């Protein structure tokens, strides 16, 4: 299984019924494809909609119905559209239950850096600073290392996105929770040893449950229904994701 899929599927287990969730651009959008059965989540796109669905078929796109990445989406029954001030009042006013964001670095105090690399890329923070400062839960979904270098570090070398401590870090190797005491290793990915995680991490990890730290379990996926239907969960990104993954494209055909 690809690292990104492991991360997305583990993050999806953090979703709770009847909550409002904002997914960042990139890896976090994959989470919408793995919403556990029986759970109803309202996804917000910060350009101004709650309750959007998968992209419409070719030719039926609405030029005024897009997500925060500029891609065409559909509106599910019960969707609500609003302006940017309202959208960010939802985010900043404590109405957003959870956000899932990508990360460049997280430090031992749980601070996230994810919006610029000085001298290299300066895309702008968009809504990232508002999301980290305002959401009830902030989950960082990122690969454990970049080009062999740990992304979980003792102290940030990149500009922080917020002063606030994030709630949880999910990588393809581990689930780590920043606490007052430091970074606690809560779970390891199936088949990954604690030693591997410690060796890939640039900050001190507190071992929860000693060396026997429990491994997280991912449900069998895709479910049977996925083989015949394009998207049983009406996830908005499914088509784009499926295009990236030939095995699923075959299944669709």
């Amino acid at each position: 299984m690809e690292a990104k899929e492991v991360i997305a599927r583990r993050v999806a287990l953090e979703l709770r019924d009847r909550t409002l969730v904002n997914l960042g651009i990139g890896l976090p959008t994959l989470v919408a494809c793995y919403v556990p059965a029986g759970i109803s989540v309202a996804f917000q796109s910060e350009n101004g909609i709650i309750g959007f669905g998968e992209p419409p078929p070719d030719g039926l796109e609405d030029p005024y119905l897009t997500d925060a990445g500029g891609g065409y989406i559909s509106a599910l029954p019960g969707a609500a559209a609003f302006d940017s001030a309202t959208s960010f009042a939802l985010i900043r006013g404590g109405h957003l239950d959870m956000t899932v964001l990508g990360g460049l670095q997280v430090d031992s105090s749980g601070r996230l850096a994810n919006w610029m690399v000085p001298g290299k890329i300066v895309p702008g923070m968009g809504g990232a600073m508002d999301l980290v400062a305002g959401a009830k839960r902030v989950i960082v979904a990122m690969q454990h290392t970049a080009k062999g270098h740990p992304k979980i570090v003792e102290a940030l070398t990149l500009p922080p996105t917020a002063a606030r401590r994030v709630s949880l870090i999910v990588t393809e190797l581990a689930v780590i929770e920043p606490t007052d005491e430091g970074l606690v290793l809560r779970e390891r990915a199936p088949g990954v040893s604690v030693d591997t995680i410690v060796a890939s991490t640039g900050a001190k990890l507190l071992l929860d449950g000693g060396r026997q730290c429990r491994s997280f379990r991912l449900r069998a996926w895709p479910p049977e229904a996925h083989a015949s239907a394009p998207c049983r969960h009406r996830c908005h990104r499914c088509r784009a994701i499926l295009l990236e993954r030939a095995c699923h494209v075959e299944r669709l055909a």
Partner: protein
Amino acid sequence: MQDGISAERAAAMIPDGASVMFGGFLGVGSPDRVIDALVARGARGLTLICNDTASPGVGVGKLIEAGCVAHVKASHIGTNPTTQKKMISGEIEVELVPQGTLAERIRAGGSGLGGVLTRTGVGTVVSEGKQVWEIDGESFLLEMPLRADFALLRAHEADHFGNLTYRLTAANFNPVMAFAADCVIAEPEEIVPVGVIPPDAVRTPGVLVHHLVRRPQ
């Protein structure tokens, strides 16, 4: 009562060096006909206040490419490599503002507020040079109101009083910007007779709108 002006006339009203708010999110809901007219008239030295600079050839991205812009205040320029290039070469000065803070600064500018206090940006480069207020033990940044000489809006329908409606995610920054400029110019899809838009459906009251841009005949 407004009959509407041409996009060219609207572009001619905006002098070089003016500060201009543009509605739009990655080009969705941006006033495209006035943008084209600004490019055609060769506008120079504009200050753009907008969420993002879209992409080359799209929305306000056209103004960036055509060299109309000296300053940008936006939350995101990552989708437009031309903005990044011109920022690095020093041709364009860019101020990055968190998206929610941008919306709230504009709201403050349009609502007579002296500023807004927000958690967003505390402990980051955004807080540099800004006042930090301690309220009930928590830190907040003081962000100043933002206004402009002009606001250029894209609407769905307008009536002859200037009442505006928007569609879906094309609303974005348009409604909040309608309050925050000395001259507000709206570019609707269609101008309809007074009474066609029900009062409950009006999202920007017509009193805020100075000019409507009509479709070419």
